């Protein structure tokens, strides 16, 4: 099979390289910003894992290793662009200025999504694999109808490409020339299933069969991810329709804190990918090109550490959710039977805790 080399603008060794179709001119300040975003993302992700281990969160899906794909693509977004994430896109959360505590609240079981999707231009995490790609496409169809020069990015994984919904989204987006960028993080695993078992063809090639371009980008190269997503977004905004971007990267951690990847994959493979660390790559380049010095790196580390500390405190002190929330958001305009259930709930227990202790499961 004829597989294109992934678009690369920074080699794994941290050396700038050229690509005939994509280029980027980027100021040192912006480069440092990307670096800061990635480090922060990694630090936040580590905090998620720690807090889960300490029982503060029910679950945490790690974004370790995918920082370049997430930050690069997110930093390509314009203010009016809209994001439809999957459930591991913590780097995008940070770049969209969504309150990280709202994200942690979800994995703490306090709510199912606490931020305002429209205000943040960042939809809620979607746990039913692939569903959000259709929402993204519909949203993009709406942008086109509005005549707004904006676009949408839909995030999803390699595993998601097997779902009917994702393929229907590809088709709707093509048919309506919707301004949507399908950003697939091929982290090579869908829980225990390697991507070569998920699909026989390189994923970016899926797009052509629906009538729009697909491009594979080095997902550990933040500059390439930025450049390719930026181009795809511009294409979308100018009415040329969707693009599929396959960011070829790697899930360095477990699927979630409930997972034990040693059961299904080689440590050697993980080690090989760890050596292609996206943050290290940018750091090398930053230092070599004079875009930053060691003191900047130390400052970012300290700042991220402080950020994590604040976040940790906030999560630990997060108030329990209001118990009537169960009933309050089922319907926008009320529902007789729910109102009755709510009244009965309040009357019956006058908010005393149910005595039964449900066993907490480990696996999920």
């Amino acid at each position: 099979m004829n597989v294109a080399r992934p678009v690369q603008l920074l080699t794994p060794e941290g050396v700038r390289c050229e690509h005939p179709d994509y280029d980027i001119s980027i100021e040192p300040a912006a480069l440092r910003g990307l670096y800061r975003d990635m480090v922060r993302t990694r630090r936040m992700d580590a905090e998620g894992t720690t807090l889960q281990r300490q029982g503060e969160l029910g679950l945490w899906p790690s974004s370790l290793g995918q920082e370049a794909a997430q930050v690069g693509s997110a930093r390509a977004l314009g203010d009016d662009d809209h994001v439809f994430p999957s459930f591991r896109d913590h780097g995008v959360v940070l770049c969209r200025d969504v309150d990280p505590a709202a994200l942690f609240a979800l994995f703490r079981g306090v709510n199912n999504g606490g931020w305002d999707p429209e205000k943040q231009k960042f939809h809620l995490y979607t746990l039913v694999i692939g569903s959000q790609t259709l929402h993204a496409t519909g949203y993009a169809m709406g942008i086109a109808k509005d005549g707004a020069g904006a676009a949408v990015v839909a995030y999803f994984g390699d595993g998601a490409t097997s779902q009917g919904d994702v393929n229907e989204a590809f088709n709707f987006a093509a048919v309506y020339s919707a301004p949507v960028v399908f950003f697939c993080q091929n982290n090579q695993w869908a829980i225990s299933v390697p991507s070569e078992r998920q699909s026989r063809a390189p994923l970016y090639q899926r797009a052509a069969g629906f009538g729009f371009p697909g491009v594979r980008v080095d997902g550990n190269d933040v500059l390439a991810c930025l450049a390719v997503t930026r181009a795809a977004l511009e294409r979308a905004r100018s009415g040329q329709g969707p693009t599929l971007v396959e960011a070829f990267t790697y899930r360095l951690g477990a699927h979630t804190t409930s997972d034990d990847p040693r059961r299904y994959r080689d440590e050697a493979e993980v080690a090989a990918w760890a050596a292609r660390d996206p943050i290290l790559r940018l750091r090398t380049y930053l230092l070599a090109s004079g875009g930053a010095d060691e003191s900047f790196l130390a400052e970012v580390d300290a700042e991220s550490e402080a950020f994590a500390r604040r976040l940790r405190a906030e999560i630990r002190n997060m108030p329990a959710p209001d118990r009537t929330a169960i009933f309050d958001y089922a319907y926008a305009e009320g529902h007789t039977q729910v109102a009755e259930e709510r009244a009965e709930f309040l009357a019956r227990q006058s908010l005393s805790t149910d005595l039964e202790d449900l066993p907490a499961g480990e696996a999920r």
Partner: protein
Amino acid sequence: MTIFPTVTVAGAINQALRSAMEAHPKMLLMGEDIGRLGGVFRVTDQLQRDFGEDRVLDTPLAESGIVGTAIGLALRGYRPVVEIQFDGFVFPAFDQIVTQLAKLHARSMGKIRLPIVIRIPYGGGIGAVEHHSESPEAYFAHTAGLKVVTPANAADAYWMLRQAIDCDDPVVFLEPKRRYHEKTRLDTGVAPGPLHRARVVRPGGDVTLACYGPMVQTCLDVAEAAAAEHRSVEVVDLRSLSPLDLDTLVESMNRTGRMVIAHEAPVYFGPGAEIAARVTERCFYRVEAPVLRVGGYHTPYPPSRLENDYLPGFNRVLDAVDRVLAY
């Protein structure tokens, strides 16, 4: 006194869509073959011509895609009214309806509203092939986050659809397809009442006959026949399955002490069970007989030459009325 014009159920729906499109500039129609063709039942006739392809979308043939993109459009501020071509073809969209459409308001703690109407022609009795005669309402009524309504006549078809479109919750709007060509007078000036209110369509004192959608006319016929035998049957058109207007049913049951529920949907784990359970609980000291249910059997919908045996028709409903009175 104004004499209002008579319209068919299908015509009333067409009128409701038209006037709602005029009232809501962000309203869209989406579905398979609803544009040029005007829908396989012609319910959307001329709407694409008059509102354009940008507002009346002939979609690709993919129900999940239709509902999923409708959700996205609603998130963008649009108000999509989706047509599912036939009852039996709603299931490819079931995941989007149950895990997304129904839950997003709660998932976002009220920040997201999805004012989407899913129109589904439903029910049997038209001599159709497989998957074209089903009554899936129990699946939707069991799903928290959805509202489920169904008109039984043209005036209700018009007004209930207008109200469903105005509603900020997702509404499954079930259209009794075998009644599409039946007519009533329609006053488009004044709504006959709230969307989720049941209606006593024929008062009576001996037994309450609860029904909805295509069964209402059947039940009225039964009441008429029973009257000839000096049995006074009160017919209640539920109109809304989620929420349920229990008060109207309870009030009726408290008078009659007896109730039959008739629907085309299979009885087993079907709509009648919920009504029977609630009414029995609310009227416990008043029930003089168990609430009896008449409906489809727990079998796949049969080929059309057997559908009159499968569907709860006049005889089976009358029979249940007799049985409940015999207690």
